[in-house]
């Protein structure tokens, strides 16, 4: 089943879906494993696995440090594939790869998608790859029937959103505000207008990320978006309270 259908099925049963994010190999694959188990058990609907990159230009301090430490601890792209394969085989929810373009590029794009398909990965988020630069990427995701998830930003015009949506699949990742990951967004009137613009531009499910940290954030999104994305919050939680804290946190969100 492709990502969009999978999400549609889940969405049919819930007011809003939860997508979580983690950086592979940070603080270790073993902790990743525990965290994911708790996420799945507590109702997460889709998980974004970030393959670390040394130059995570679009990430804020928390995720940036996680990238850096994962690499410093020796995490490789190969290990990420192996771990992702295990997760996809273990848990019955869609897993996505999030990473920067150079990781795909250096791996060999075609190989990357072939392998991703093999291990059951459903989609990709590549924040530094606009469609203009992603011709090959888009062609290959099509060929392997994988979802090239596109990103909307508050600065995107309607025309641009349509163009992005035309090139996307699975869902649209709506960045809640300008800036990098990790900082709180304010879900104000401007935000509502922005979400309305997003909605008007596409029929794909809309995920909203950047700074979502608690139940009230998720409630605010309900009705406006299809998926709430929790990123930095769980990484911080694991850093501060250990992987055991993740389950109760996720459970508290919805």
């Amino acid at each position, binding site marked *: 089943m492709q990502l969009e259908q999978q999400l549609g099925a889940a969405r049919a049963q819930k007011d809003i879906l939860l997508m979580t994010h983690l950086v592979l190999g940070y603080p270790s694959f073993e902790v990743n494993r525990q965290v994911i188990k708790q996420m799945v058990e507590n109702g997460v609907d889709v998980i974004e696995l970030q393959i670390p990159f040394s130059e995570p230009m679009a990430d804020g301090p928390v995720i940036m440090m996680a990238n*850096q430490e994962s*690499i410093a601890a020796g995490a490789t*792209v190969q290990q990420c594939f192996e771990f992702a394969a295990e997760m996809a085989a273990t848990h019955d929810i869609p897993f996505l790869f999030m990473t920067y373009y150079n990781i795909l590029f250096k791996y060999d794009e075609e190989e990357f998608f072939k392998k991703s398909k093999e291990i059951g990965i459903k989609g990709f988020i590549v*924040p530094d790859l*606009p469609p203009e630069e992603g011709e090959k990427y888009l062609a290959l995701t099509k060929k392997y029937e994988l979802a090239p998830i596109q990103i909307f930003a508050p600065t995107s015009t309607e025309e641009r959103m349509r163009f992005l949506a035309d090139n996307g699949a699975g869902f649209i990742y709506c960045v809640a505000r*300008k800036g990098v990951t990790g900082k709180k967004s304010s879900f104000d009137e401007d935000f509502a207008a922005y979400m309305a613009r997003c909605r008007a531009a596409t029929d794909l499910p809309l995920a909203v990320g950047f700074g979502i940290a608690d139940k009230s954030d998720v409630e605010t999104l309900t009705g406006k978006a299809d998926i709430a994305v929790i990123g930095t919050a769980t990484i911080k939680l694991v850093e501060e309270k250990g992987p055991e804290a993740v389950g109760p946190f996720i459970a508290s969100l919805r």
Partner: protein
Amino acid sequence: MNKKGYFGNWGGAYIPEVLYETFKQLNQAFEQVKGDPAFWQEYIDLMATYSCRPTPLTHAENLSRHFGGGQIYIKREDLNHTGAHKANNVMGQGLLVKRMGKKRVIAETGAGQHGVATATMAAKFGFECTIYMGEEDVIRQRPNVFWMEKMGATVVPVTSGARTLKDAINEAFRDWVSSMDDTHYVMGTVCGPHPFPEMVAWFQSIIGIEARKQILNQFGKLPERVYACVGGGSNAMGIFQGFLADKAVDLIGVEAGGKGIDTGQHAARLASKDASVGVAQGYKTMFLQNDDGQMLDTHSVAAGLDYIGVSPILSDLWEKKRVRFAAATDAEVMAALDLTMKKEGIIPALESTHAFVHAFKEAPELKPDQALIINQSGRGDKDIFTIAHAFDDPSWKAFIRGKGEEYAT
């Protein structure tokens, strides 16, 4: 360019969606001024009255005699206001920012020269200014940090990654993705996403335009060879553009050989076999990276050359064999610096000295009625801490010890 923003297979604009509109506006603004002779004239006038353009072309008679080969000419970008070619690019972008109506500028800096130049430009144009600088470079280039701050800029030490230039670039982008409404990112070299490589090269072309005219005037014919150090590649592209169309002129880019190519501790992208094609910091070029695509730690005694990537324009010219590349080691740089100071009374920046190293190696291959030009991208004053340290100067050390004790808490 075949595809927009590409030079052959190199370049592009690998940017986050949130910056899409910003780049669109920047491209429009740049296209507009590029086609406007009045803008270029405004730029020339500014550089003539605020900086010291045209910078001279100095005939290094003693060095020429010393090597007994071709006539060595030095293009004196060190005489620019703020002491390096960085001023050219920065002042040009300053004029552009004024046209775009933005009020704040940000920049990354390695050696600190681009930071000082940007802080200077911001003071001159009345912009707010934040400079991102790797923590390691903040330490290596403290005097430059001091001046930036005195000129009213905020200097943010970057503690992520290798704490050098590439990390400062990441941080600047992180600032920009939230501040782009009123802020322009003054990229310091011919790298980064389109239109930066083209734009920076355009402003720096003033070097080559002048140099070509000057060598014809002073020497009567074109040089055989032109040497420039290559960090990001802006001073090199600056001077090379003056001679690109002169097919007979051999163009040589000199990268940081660090502790030696074999040690892996260097920053030679095109002069070593250690780099491979990649995409990072918004553009496609040859990067020093591992098989996974993770960027490597680079090393050079010259902070301004200590960078993982290289201009996509230079990668293209390298691929097309129009520019050849060499590397100079830290040790060779110190020897060439010593010789240049003693023979000509000129103190090139450590970055620039890389070009001198290779020119010195090849000068004997030329005949006395042939010329070569070295682009002296900057002056060495800023490097006093590094140079005095490298030469293990005892009275400098004693001086610093004494000052340190004075400041002991």
